[in-house]
């Protein structure tokens, strides 16, 4: 199988760790060889966070190289463009959750924020596939990651991963009400 690299980005506190662990485990449940790594430590505090996932046979380091990600998954609009610009490979796909957590320079009016239009323009220029995800009625903003995961599953953005693999992975990682709510929403969106 060809190597499939995924780069995930977001802001500390958005739950990137859970979505990356679910995809990694889903790949494993699908019988694929996979590696991953997450940001931990200082950067978690409201800064930019990233995770790397690599799927395939001849893979060694868990880190994805620049401009070599077939798929960039982002939990936030600014981080979506930053990640895509740095990591997306030719013909790659960007899928992002359309929320905006303004970076400090934007709030201080020292820089311009990124608009939805800019994301679209960016992908059009680069000939990247773009999926924008937004869910109006989320019971808790911390479930945005699962809404994004559902879009990834529904659009089959990770080759070889099917609904049951994602569900098994979610079962591995959650229990009780958390599992119930997240799995319920995941199923309703796919």
């Amino acid at each position, binding site marked *: 199988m060809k190597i499939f690299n995924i780069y995930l980005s977001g802001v500390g506190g958005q739950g990137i760790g859970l979505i990356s662990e679910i995809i990694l485990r889903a790949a494993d449940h699908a019988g694929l060889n996979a590696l991953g790594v997450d940001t*931990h430590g200082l950067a978690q505090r409201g800064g930019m966070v990233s995770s790397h996932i690599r799927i395939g046979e001849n893979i060694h380091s868990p880190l994805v190289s*620049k401009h070599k990600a077939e798929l960039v998954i982002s939990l936030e609009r600014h981080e979506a463009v930053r990640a895509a*610009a740095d990591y997306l490979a030719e013909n790659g796909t960007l899928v992002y959750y359309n929320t905006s*957590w303004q*970076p400090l320079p934007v709030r201080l009016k020292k820089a311009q924020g990124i608009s939805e239009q800019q994301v679209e323009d960016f992908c059009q220029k680069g000939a990247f596939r773009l999926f924008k995800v937004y869910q109006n009625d989320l019971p808790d903003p911390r479930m945005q990651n699962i809404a994004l995961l559902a879009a990834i599953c529904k659009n089959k953005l990770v080759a070889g991963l099917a609904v049951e693999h994602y569900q098994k992975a979610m079962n591995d990682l959650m229990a009780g009400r958390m599992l119930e709510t997240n799995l319920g929403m995941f199923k309703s969106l796919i």
Partner: protein
Amino acid sequence: MKSFADMLLSREAFSEIVMGNTAVVRAMIEAGARVVTSYPGSPTPEIASAIAGIKAEDRPFYFEFSTNEKVATEVAYGASVNGHLSTVFFKSVGLNVAADTFVQLSLMNLIGGMVVILGDDPGANSSQNEQDNRHLARLSYTPIFEPANPQEVYQYYKAAAILSRQLHIPVILRLTTHVCHAKQKVNFAAWQPADFDKTPAFDVKNGPYMPLTSLVFPMKRRALGNLQQVAEMSENKGLHQLVGNENPRQGIVTFGMPFLSLLDCLAESGGKPDILKLGMIYPLPQKLIAEFLRNHEEVFVLEELDDIIEGEIKRLAFEQQIKVKIHGKTDIESWIGEYTADKVAVLLAAIWPEIAPKPAAAPDFSVAVPPRPAQMCPGCGHRSAFHAVKQALGDDDIKVADIGCHTLGFMPPYNMGQLLMCMGASTGIAAGMSLFNASRSVVCFLGDSTFFHAGIPGIVNALFNKHNITLIIMENGTTAMTGHQDHAASGRNFNQATDKIPVRGVLEGLGVKHIYEVDTYQQEKLTEMVKEAVAVEGFAVVIARHPCMLKLMREQRRKENFQAKMVSIDKQACNQTHACVSDFACPTFIMHEDGSIDVNPDLCIGDGSCLQTCPAKAINRPENR
């Protein structure tokens, strides 16, 4: 849900996707570790998270977070000379704190064995430097194993434990950030719990344990003799990996994670140099390396951070008169940063361009995305405190930062922190800056975990030598930055409830005459207190206290009747002075292009600490969502 605790205690062999930091815990269990200690610091605290997952009564070994890395090392040492296999783990710069004890370990007959796990941080992902701790290993004659991935973390810990117990020496397991955090399916062996002999086996006959003047020499001879023995053992090919491509021209010597980066580069370029990947990296297997040098016209030493083995390998070639061209570090950049596949590709291209992968094309257009530095959480008490402290200080006053979440106060718009060194250093630095200084007040910050870790000596010194400085202690009851580990004033240790050692009580006991204390969120009062404290001629302390809001909110969310709240903007009252954004700068506030302000529902935790910062009183009280 999978129970990682059950998995770590499984009697049967199994495979599971885990990170390096989890894999090492299973290795400790299998190897029979009895005492494990640490002080939290990235990239290693998840080792403790994995241990915490196992119920205290099921834990096969004792674990504690000690007051600092030095004490942690001492506790592990004490256990080892009593016959128990012990392990201490901490981050890269933690070894500086532990060094006074650590450098002595190899002089001692560690009858139980002791493994020191170092979490080095190439790339300075969450540290104040990229120091290469292999230097301290050499300085102290301590062997090092360095794994490249979680599977090897597990295997090498066990090998380190065996070696340590066999020769009664300390052995280092050196991990780097992305080895600690890499996730991979690891194959674990079966485990049969062994009976544990609790007899305190300490006996001076196993010593000497008293390194004093001339008594040092026999102990040093023993340490060097052990190292020589390990050097011979390191020739065991099973400890290393030879990737043979029968290439007489190009050979590469490497180890750790850069080995994986190299394999990724070669998979892409199709290059086929021979590779000698070392598992034990100190002392080096000299015969094995000499043979590798002889078999190649050119050898590239691919070594992250400093040029330690490059120097040793060049010396070896010189001594043995081996005719080989040795490539190593070329410029300053090759000493800096993590050796990712991208970096290794650049290094390869400089030496052997034909086997370097071509860099992927970057888009030929760009979009300016504003940077997103780490910042304090929404509702963080430190933000409230910095906002208030700033009102009390002049622009020209000197503000000394320390390590912790509150370090982030250095950023705009607070600018509360102009110098940073290491854990607990702020009070000492501030004292130095107060000398011959009658015009600029000197204020320094300290967290409560750091207070106990390394902060107290600086405070004692400030009292002892009558320094004229103001210390602001940001007391949030936990070690927040590394994931909320308890400390001496938390009222709990890793294993049980314990008496709090109150920060204020310690200060009073030391004889600090001027102590001010206030809730972090009472900004006006805090501003006044800082003004008073700065006016004191001598040493004054202000304690800004509130439990870490992130931790508190997480605990409250778990409660059955929890009701989420958030503030809102009174658009009529808002006159767009933007104090909420420009001065207070909680990430919750959204600045629209027309200058109007909104509240981000993803972020607001409804603490309401922002209300007092709006001159127009345009922020409404937190209401139920």
